[in-house]
């Protein structure tokens, strides 16, 4: 029988250390909604999404109550729209984004992701329409998230798309300039995007997936931090072991919620994504974990090593706890969403260059970083290219979610609100890479892609 101390340990994790199920994400295939008529396509996707996900929020709330653990978000991911909508031959997909927004509001979810295109090797006419529609789509909707995959370790990098996405990020910032350029917080540019990620803004339902699937994202940086308090001064073996054990426990809770949600919704279970995803709340921060490990601030020498061992041991604990660990699983390092990161960036301990180094060993990439609004598009493309190169060469997912805040410069702050938090605007290297980006074409696949 469960002991009293085990009961208190679990409940302390939930009540004091911010353990939560960050999201139950329902992946929905929209390929069977294909139509040559745009308005018919919109009707069909609205119908399919609102039918499949009609009970998602209700079931999420029930499970929250029964297990006594918060399920912070309920979300939907869909087939990349550039694929599902290709048959419409429309010249703008903004109306599709608006339909998705309406469907998401109808079923009560927090986000819907998959206004996406996969252009790692080249873009179809439909991919181009989607990419051109992103700024307007993100300005006119609230819950729609967009992502574009511009490279893979298998295919190399599509530098035409890298160049274009720099412009798209800036256009999106301008179109939402009155709201702190928040449109950019809903746009991710990936290298090696994964098809079953439940986290936003990069979630989409991959083409190799079932018709409908439940993926669950669990989080708990606060729990890891608290666990590490018990091994202050201990050696690295003890440190790693503690992280691993904690990650195991957290993942088991996610597995339980995922199985139960899958049963009640009668939708197959896909994966558990164990990602330490911080929130702006005190005690729910990756940077505070670094401090607990012995660094004065995030960004101090040693930060990359600390992140590497954190990420690795989170994965090791996670894979032992569930047969289907997937998605991104590891430690996220968004700046605006993490109280300790915000502080470190504000006092100059954490720079963009150090963050780039950290992305070599974290679970994703440069995330939620506010930069000056007058940053040229080519510079944003250069940052995307650097980040994608790291992903391509190291066989890992990398991503860029930068927010050029129109009308603001270094030293000012921008407030996004809610889980997105607030951020100081960080300086960007001002030397130009415009001629480099202008070359266009493709970067061929790296040598280690030839594994056949």
């Amino acid at each position, binding site marked *: 029988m*469960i002991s*009293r101390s085990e*009961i208190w*340990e*679990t409940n302390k994790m939930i009540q004091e250390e911010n353990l939560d199920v960050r999201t139950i994400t329902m992946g929905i295939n929209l390929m069977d909604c294909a139509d040559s008529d745009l308005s018919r396509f919109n009707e069909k996707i609205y119908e399919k999404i609102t039918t499949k996900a009609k009970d998602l929020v209700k079931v999420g709330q029930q499970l929250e*109550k*029964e*297990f006594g653990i918060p399920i912070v978000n309920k979300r939907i991911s869909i087939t990349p729209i550039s694929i599902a909508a290709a048959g419409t031959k429309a010249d703008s997909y903004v109306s599709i984004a608006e339909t998705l927004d309406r469907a998401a509001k109808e079923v009560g979810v927090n986000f819907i992701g998959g206004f996406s295109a996969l252009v790692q090797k080249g873009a179809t006419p439909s991919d181009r329409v989607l990419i051109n529609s992103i700024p307007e789509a993100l300005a006119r909707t609230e819950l729609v998230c967009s992502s574009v995959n511009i490279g893979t370790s298998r295919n190399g990098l599509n530098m035409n798309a890298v160049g274009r996405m720099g412009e798209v990020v800036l256009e999106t910032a301008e179109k939402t300039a009155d709201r702190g350029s928040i449109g950019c917080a809903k746009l991710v540019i990936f290298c090696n995007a994964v098809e079953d990620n439940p986290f936003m803004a990069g979630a989409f339902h991959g083409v190799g997936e079932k018709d409908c699937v439940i993926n669950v994202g669990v989080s708990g940086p606060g729990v890891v931090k608290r666990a590490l308090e018990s091994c202050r001064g201990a050696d690295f073996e003890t440190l790693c072991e503690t992280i691993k054990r904690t990650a195991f426990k957290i993942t*088991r*809770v996610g597995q339980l919620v995922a199985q139960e949600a899958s049963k009640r919704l009668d939708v197959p279970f896909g994966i558990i994504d164990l990602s330490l995803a911080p929130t702006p709340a005190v005690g729910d921060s990756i940077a505070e974990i670094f401090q607990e490990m012995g660094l004065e601030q995030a960004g101090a020498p040693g930060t990359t090593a600390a992140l590497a061992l954190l990420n690795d041991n989170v994965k090791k604990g996670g894979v032992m706890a569930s047969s289907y660990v997937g998605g991104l699983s590891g430690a996220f390092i968004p700046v605006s969403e993490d109280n300790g990161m915000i502080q470190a960036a504000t006092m100059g301990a954490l720079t963009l260059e150090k963050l780039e180094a950290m992305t070599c060993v974290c679970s994703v990439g440069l995330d939620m970083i506010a930069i000056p609004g007058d940053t040229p598009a080519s510079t944003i493309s250069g940052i995307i290219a650097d980040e994608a190169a790291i992903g391509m060469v190291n066989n890992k997912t990398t991503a860029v979610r930068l927010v050029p805040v129109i009308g603001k410069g270094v030293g000012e702050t921008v407030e996004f609100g809610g889980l997105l938090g607030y951020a100081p605007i960080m300086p960007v290297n001002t030397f130009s890479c415009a001629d480099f980006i202008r070359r266009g074409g493709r970067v061929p696949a790296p040598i280690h892609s030839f594994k056949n």
Partner: protein
Amino acid sequence: MKGIITVLGKDKVGIIAKVCLFLSENGINILDISQTIVQGYLNMVMIVDLSGSKAPFDEIYAGLKKVEEEIGAQILLQREDIFDSMHRI
């Protein structure tokens, strides 16, 4: 289905009685009960069997919330599975 009830709050007369009365009225059997009092604060854990109750989980949950208001101590009801998952392989 087994449930775990935890009660945390300032100790006073009748806390356990009120919780137990509610459980018996709803056909919920208590399998195990333990409590400690530290500096005047009651800390109680009960393991209960919910399968004998005709009321759905939601109703029992709501009922316990009413008891919570009456006695002024925090009451949590959770399915046992969450603890099993976390602490047992």
